[in-house]
């Protein structure tokens, strides 16, 4: 099956600075993909390139089907009412789902005669999401959809989004700073760091393939020096007499190590702390 989003050797440059380098990834259709990384990692750049708002300097990026994009500041026409934005969308889009949009806004209790400028942060987010979903996209790209929202509004936005994913084959790519917001909702992980791709893969597979080890510091050296045949230390090291490591694969362990499964946040942090580590399909040092 054709991936919903595919980048090959993608590079994007702003004047003389590379915002994104040599990025190759494929997000399968129907996935909810989390795009995470620190500020300036290239998340927005990847999104803008994916939806065609930025021209790549190198390589290519392609989307299967229709794509809808909601930018970080959730731009709405401030002087327009919600109803006016709906009717504008209806005229601009052949496959506009007007009834679905009205039903959703009704269920959320958002008045159609309210001007965008007078909506609360949570309502703006819901209206922006509703307008994007009404276009019935195959791929929905959301740049920081949860930023500046209170916990209740974050939950409501995710409920709307997950409901739509359950209803039809929709692929979502969404960026966030807060990994814990994504834990229950996303099933694909993309980690960008300093303009480079570090991780791209199925979250369940990634979690099953990583362990957190805790043990005496003197053992850390031996483990780090292991020849990496698919398995190896991702990050971490001794802190005093004890060492804590994030490892990939299933190394044969000294019984003095205590091993436990890695959480999503630990996995992301582990990679971000070691920019030279990577977990990418088709590269050396990666499982099947």
């Amino acid at each position, binding site marked *: 099956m054709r991936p919903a989003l595919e980048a090959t050797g993608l590079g994007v440059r702003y004047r003389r600075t590379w915002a994104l380098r040599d990025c190759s990834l494929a997000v399968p259709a129907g996935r*909810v993909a989390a795009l995470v990384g620190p500020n300036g990692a290239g998340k927005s750049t990847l999104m803008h390139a994916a939806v065609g708002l930025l021209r790549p300097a190198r390589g290519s990026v392609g989307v299967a089907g229709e794509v809808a994009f909601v930018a970080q500041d959730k731009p709405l026409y401030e002087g327009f009412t919600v109803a006016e934005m709906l009717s504008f969308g209806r005229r601009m889009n052949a496959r506009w789902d007007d009834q679905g949009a009205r039903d959703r806004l009704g269920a959320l209790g958002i008045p159609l005669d309210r001007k965008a400028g007078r909506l609360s942060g949570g309502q703006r987010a819901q209206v922006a999401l509703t307008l994007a979903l009404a276009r019935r996209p195959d791929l929905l790209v959301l740049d920081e959809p949860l930023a500046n929202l209170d916990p209740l509004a974050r*939950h*409501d936005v*995710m*409920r*709307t989004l*997950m*409901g739509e*994913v*359950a*209803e039809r084959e929709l692929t979502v790519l969404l960026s966030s700073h807060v990994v814990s917001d994504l834990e*229950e*909702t*996303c*099933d694909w992980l993309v980690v960008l760091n300093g303009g480079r791709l570090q991780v791209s893969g199925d979250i369940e597979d990634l979690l099953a393939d990583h362990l957190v080890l805790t043990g005496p510091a003197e053992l850390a050296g031996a483990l780090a020096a292991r020849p990496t045949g698919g398995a190896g230390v991702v990050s971490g090291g001794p802190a005093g007499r004890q060492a804590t490591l994030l490892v990939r694969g299933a190394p044969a362990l000294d019984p003095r190590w205590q091993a436990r499964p890695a959480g999503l946040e630990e996995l992301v942090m582990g990679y971000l702390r070691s920019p030279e580590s990577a977990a990418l399909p088709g590269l050396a040092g990666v499982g099947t």
Partner: protein
Amino acid sequence: MIDFQLDRGSGVSTYLQLVHQVRQALRLGTLRPGDQLPTAREVVERLAINPNTVLKAYRELEREGLVEGRPGMGTFVRRGIAGPTLAEHTRLRRGLEEWVREARAAGLDQDDLRALFTVVLADAAKEGAA
């Protein structure tokens, strides 16, 4: 209809929490053969979780023979879990409450209680398997 709850701090994976809650409802008789489970959409619109998590839980329950998916209709309970009757539950609960009171009187705190219970449960499982 079962009303799923999520304990995000429990450390138990979300799909297992859903499986456990259906099993528990079957044991207590709040879910009975023929009852319909909520659709994936209904669950995710309440809990804000990935639909695949719900489908995975339902597949597991189906594998155990507890529920069945009827194409285009939904997922339905096939059979209950034969367990102690409700009266038996009450009697056992009283016994456990008595035990907790005794343990507290002996100076055990919440964590001690949990640890002890877990160890005994694990040992019993081992004996059962042997």
